[in-house]
């Protein structure tokens, strides 16, 4: 694979430019070392680690329950999904049966969180392209989701809602009514976004054919999530290896064709629609009953061996890989995050594009820098 365009005539001037770690569009502390000729990128090299917090090491120094609050800090934009994924991973290891009602609540909470994450992506992506207003629109609607989640979890961003065997707090009629109301309201808003953002001529000019992912990249980098689906590959952990009760829900995997920034955008817009469908189905079927499993062992001591659990986060396939020696502290806890994979492809995707495209590509793959660094 081509790593960079190094065929530069000797008499032409090139230069290096550091984009970041303090830059408005690197979405946090990411540094891109760009080799430029004029405004054309010859090679791009991401430098990561500025937001490293040693989550994996922390997991090796505390028992399973103590690690629970860390999980939503890995990716603070879809913290609920990460938090519940850890609970589900531990439940799978310990063979804990989760009550029906808790499963449904988890689905609703996770999908609401997915919408809020995608909304923030839409805002920041458009901000990268120079459109400021969609950012405010996205945040306005995201605020409604945060209020709903706040009412059941008590926090707005870094949730710690899941417990091994269920969830902490039950939902009431007010939550159900507010969520149903939001779903109805948000369908109309999505149509607006589709028309005003995706339909905008300048937006299409800026995103179509920009940052095309080579299908070969999949083999080399194990791409996942909207970036993979935008290339036309129907891979979604919720469909392929359903966890929780996802197999009961009727939703479609959103697909693109070329794998450019525009396809990634339409895929995410479609996913918000699908998430609304899932939430509405779950609200309709929400059963009564307990929200915690009756018998959860006091001390979590998973059987010796390797354990693996994957979920579809807002950014792609997120995996827990836990090695246990039978004690209540894991030997190794690997968090495999999709943003890390996505940012790793940048040296292949960026060469040949322009500086403004680099910003657009970074925005379209929807990275969360602390998730890359962990």
């Amino acid at each position: 694979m081509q790593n960079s365009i190094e065929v530069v005539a000797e008499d032409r001037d090139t230069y290096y430019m550091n984009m970041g770690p303090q830059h408005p569009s690197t979405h946090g502390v990411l540094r891109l070392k760009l080799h430029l000729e004029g405004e054309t990128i010859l090679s791009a090299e991401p430098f990561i680690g500025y937001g490293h917090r040693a989550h994996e090491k922390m997991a090796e120094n505390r028992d399973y329950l103590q690690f629970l609050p860390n999980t939503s800090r890995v990716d603070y934009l879809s913290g609920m999904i990460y938090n519940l994924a850890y609970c589900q991973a531990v439940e799978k290891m310990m063979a804990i049966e989760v009550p029906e009602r808790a499963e449904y609540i988890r689905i609703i909470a996770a999908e609401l969180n997915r919408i809020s994450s995608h909304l923030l992506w839409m805002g920041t992506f458009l901000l990268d392209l120079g459109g400021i207003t969609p950012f405010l629109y996205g945040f306005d609607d995201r605020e409604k989701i945060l209020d709903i989640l706040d009412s059941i979890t008590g926090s707005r961003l870094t949730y710690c809602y899941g417990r091994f065997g269920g969830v902490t707090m039950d939902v009431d009629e007010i939550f159900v009514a507010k969520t149903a109301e939001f779903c109805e309201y948000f369908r109309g808003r999505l149509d607006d976004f589709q028309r005003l953002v995706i339909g905008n001529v300048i937006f299409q000019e800026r995103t179509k054919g920009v940052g095309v992912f080579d299908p070969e990249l999949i083999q080399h980098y194990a791409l996942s999530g909207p970036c993979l689906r935008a290339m036309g590959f129907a891979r979604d952990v919720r469909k392929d290896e359903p966890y929780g009760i996802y197999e009961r829900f009727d939703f479609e995997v959103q697909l693109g064709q070329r794998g450019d920034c525009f396809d990634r955008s339409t895929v995410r817009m479609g996913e918000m629609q699908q998430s609304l469908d899932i939430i509405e189905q779950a609200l309709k079927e929400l059963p009564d009953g307990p929200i915690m499993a009756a018998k959860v062992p006091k001390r979590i001591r998973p059987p010796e061996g390797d354990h693996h659990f994957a979920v579809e986060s807002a950014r792609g396939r997120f995996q827990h890989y836990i090695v246990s020696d039978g004690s209540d502290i894991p030997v190794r806890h690997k968090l495999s995050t999709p943003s890390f994979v996505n940012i790793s492809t940048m040296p292949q995707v960026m060469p040949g594009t322009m500086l403004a495209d680099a910003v657009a590509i970074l925005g379209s793959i929807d990275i969360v820098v602390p998730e890359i660094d962990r």
Partner: protein
Amino acid sequence: MVHNLTQILGNPLLALAAAIAAIMGYLTVNAMMLIWLERKFSARIQRRLGPTEHGPFGLLQSVADMGKLLSKELLTPDHVHKPLYLLAPVLVFSPVIALCSLFPISESWVFHDFNIALVLLLAISNVTIVGIFFAGWGSNNKYALLGAVRSVAQNISYEIPLILSVIPIVLMTRSLSLYQISAAQDVFPFILVQPLAALIFLIAATAETNRAPFDIPEAESELIAGFHTEYSGMRFALFFFAEYSNMVIVCALAAVLFLGGWHGPLLPGWLWFMIKVYGLIILMMWFRWTFPRLRFDQLMSFAWIVLVPLSILNLLLTIVVIKLI
């Protein structure tokens, strides 16, 4: 007007100084009010309130910001090329003062009626580009340099359709005087006979003032702050003021060329002129808060492939029609 002032003050130099002071006072208040207006307007578009705390409707917010910028330390980074770095904000702001004196605000309110005002205006306004390039080059910063290079390329490219869209008006009125052009529109504004030229002029003028969607020299998501990345305090404020003052200049020019200057029913002439100018400014603000930014190469090809041929076509049509009539 300078003539009248000379009669009142008794000395032509004193009159000139008074006129310059009046223009600078107007520009300062205008920029502050436009910043307030932009904040309020963008807030309404984005379902927010905008400034509300200081004064009625937050009107004093800009005054507070002004106080902050004035009291800030004038920081000069070590690595800059000092003469260029210090000269740039002055070069960007000062042409605006000269330009403001050219406009006929109403039938009787003209600073001085130059017979080549239009050429003078287009020439002086280009001094701003030199200032911007000095800022980018003198800052000795890659982001600033990229912003400056973009700015020069963009301004030179969009200058051509801008001038080509002005020439039909000159052909129609056979005058380069802004007063004469305004006076010629007493029956109907020229936008009715030159809609294409008006559209091209508006697009090119938005690009000339580096406003979104053509704000690539500043492009905060790509170049941090573009050519004024290294500036802070009052020096930054001069760039900021120049941007808003340039908006007034191009909108005033559009009002004179296409919207009939001071002509309008019922209201006094100067009020009509102001309504037209600030209406156009609000339109430009609307652009900014609606559209994303174009990419640099798309911007250039838009100028050369779409705007320049269209404006030449429009010019040819105008020549043919004038010849036939």
